[in-house]
């Protein structure tokens, strides 16, 4: 009997592993559609940022209540992974609670701890479900959140609650089987939370108990493996990508805009200086589609939690403009997925005639950004939507030459009179005369 279960388990594990691997490879491929960028600098600072922001959840605590709730889920999740290891080993080896002999007295303590963590997870999930569906917090119900993004969030929360329920069922029936003296079930006692479920199953025969225990075990593990596959399609991918995303996040002052080397060369030539060959191919100026972005910008789109903290701080969005930095990130991910699918179906050179700019993100959205950096500052995992908006503006200005007329006038003024306003350059120092005059007249 156990051998069949072991074989089935290994097969299940293999199938889940296969799907996760396949999906991970296609996400990786989609991310690498982006342009090369190197991040070999300041390794210590990068690790530090990752440790603080992703591992330590620093920015989540900007909003302390939610930060705490999220921390419960996060910590619960990390801890329960330790138990997962045992469950998987048990599944493969046909053992039960493999770690009991190794850990001795520590074992029940650990399981109790996990059970308490799990209650924290359930509590936080319930609170989050209420916030989203009953309190209807505004930022969860913006236009870009219609349909899948909203159900995605709810599915995950309910899923987590169900998983925890099966964990408790497992432990409760397990305790009854220990009591019944089943040799397969080592005596570890009852546990902090699941003890309250024990009366529910106490009337069952030993055979029925084993059935329930095994079923709960299988549902729990299949649920978790399914979850692992599911998150690769969901905003929940942030549980993995938040780490690299913070590692690769920008360390420079926020106000600094990325320099375009290719332009530097051309300007040097125009100014009569000897140009250096940067070795960089002059491709498209700015970003029209995902392939024009840097790979880390696409990765950040896959990391985005759709929490909307960026959008809720965005001055353009706050005052009713179309721009929503969260939507920008969601659009990039959707477009990267689309391009990826095209490659799978029609080969790498297929052109579907669509692009990120135009089909997903409109000029109106791009033009509304004040480059204030509120979005980048608000993002709990250091995503920088502004860098992408500015890259796309470069496309609008330099490739499409379709910036608003008043901007074109400003460009002309800068070119002709070295100021964004149309004053003669010769008048630039006039203010100094004006002071001397006014001082003289005061005397």
């Amino acid at each position, binding site marked *: 009997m156990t051998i069949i279960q072991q074989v089935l388990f290994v097969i299940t594990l293999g199938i889940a592993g296969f799907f996760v691997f396949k999906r991970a490879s296609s996400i990786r491929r989609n991310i690498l559609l982006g342009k090369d960028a190197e991040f070999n600098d300041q390794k210590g600072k990068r690790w530090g940022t990752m440790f603080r922001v992703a591992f330590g959840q620093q920015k989540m605590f900007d909003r302390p209540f939610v930060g705490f709730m999220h921390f419960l889920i996060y910590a619960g999740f990390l801890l329960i992974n330790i138990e997962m290891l045992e469950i998987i080993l048990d599944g493969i080896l046909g053992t039960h609670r493999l770690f009991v002999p190794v850990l001795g007295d520590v074992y029940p303590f650990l399981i109790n701890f996990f059970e308490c963590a799990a209650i924290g997870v359930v509590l936080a999930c319930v609170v989050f479900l209420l916030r989203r569906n009953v309190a209807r917090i505004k930022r969860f119900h913006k236009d870009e959140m219609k349909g899948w993004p909203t159900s995605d969030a709810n599915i995950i929360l309910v899923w987590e609650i169900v998983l925890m329920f099966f964990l408790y069922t497992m432990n409760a029936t397990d305790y009854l089987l220990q009591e019944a003296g089943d040799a397969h079930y080592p005596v570890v006692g009852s546990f902090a939370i699941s003890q309250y479920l024990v009366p529910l199953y106490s009337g069952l025969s030993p055979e029925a108990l084993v059935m329930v225990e095994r079923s709960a075990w299988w549902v729990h593990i299949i649920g978790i493996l399914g979850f692992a596959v599911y998150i690769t399609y969901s905003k929940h991918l942030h549980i993995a990508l938040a780490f690299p995303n913070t590692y690769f996040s920008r360390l420079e002052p926020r106000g600094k805009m990325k320099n375009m080397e290719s332009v530097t060369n051309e300007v040097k030539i125009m100014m009569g200086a000897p140009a250096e060959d940067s070795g960089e191919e002059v491709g498209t100026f700015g970003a029209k589609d995902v392939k024009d972005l840097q790979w880390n910008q696409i990765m950040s789109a896959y990391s985005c939690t759709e929490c909307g903290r960026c959008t809720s*701080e965005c001055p353009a969005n706050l005052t009713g403009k179309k721009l929503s930095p969260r939507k920008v990130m969601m659009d990039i991910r959707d477009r990267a997925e689309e391009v990826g699918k095209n490659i799978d179906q029609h080969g790498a050179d297929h052109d579907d005639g669509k692009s990120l700019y135009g089909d997903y993100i409109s000029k109106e959205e791009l033009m509304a950004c004040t480059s204030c950096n509120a979005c980048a500052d608000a993002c709990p995992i250091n995503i920088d939507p502004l860098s992408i908006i500015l890259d796309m503006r470069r496309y609008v200005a330099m490739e499409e030459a379709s910036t608003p007329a008043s901007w074109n006038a400003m460009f002309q003024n800068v070119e002709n009179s*070295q100021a964004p306003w149309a004053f003669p350059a010769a008048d630039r*120092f006039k203010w100094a005369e004006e002071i001397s005059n006014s001082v003289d007249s005061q005397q």
Partner: protein
Amino acid sequence: MSENIKIPTMAEMAAEGKEPEILFWVGCAGSFDDRYKRVTVSFIKILNKVGINFAVLGPEESCTGDPARRAGNEFLFQMQAMTNIEVLNAYNVKKIVTACPHCFNTLKNEYPELGGEYEVLHHSEYLQQLINAGKVKVQDGGEFKGKKITFHDSCYLGRANDVYEAPRDVLKALDADLVEMKKCKTKGLCCGAGGAQMFKEPEPGNKDINIERTEQALDTGAKIVAAGCPFCMTMLSDGIKNKEKEKEVKVLDLAEMLAQQL
């Protein structure tokens, strides 16, 4: 001000074989905008009063290129930047102070990559240094003593470059009663002019950003809104005019307030 105000240019200094300690980068708004010219004058007065060895570029100054870059025109930005860098390097400039956070950010963060390495300070930081060094002393019982003042963080000073305390320190030196807006410091709300928005109409929405910000400023009950940026100054002044509060509430730059108290 009875003594003569001196505004030496780099060219004059160079002709005499001298180099100033700091270059005061006036910026386009500081040179051409009637309102912001008064800030330029105030800052010049402070520099004169303290006897700082400074100079301006005068007619040789040119737009840093910030609005062009943020509007997407990287060519124009780099042309401006390289021209400016040539001038600055020819004069062997080491240290720059400016009253515009956009110039400050561009000179400080974006010029080094193009060959222009300088120590760049926003005038609030420089004023803070002068106050701390005891070089600028506010007379007791100045005009702003105990007055309710709120400071508007400009994005390019605050979030972009993490300068939050210097402007507040200047206000503290004036012994003002500093009140904070609902959104301040890292959470500060943009005035609506950054990212070259100053030079075009806003996109359709249900409110202009400067009105939203003005409401937050008025909510504090402060009679003075302190600013450290020409764009913020324009946007907030317009907002206050829009609310018909220009008689009661003034928008003033840090340098203007300090200059009045010396």
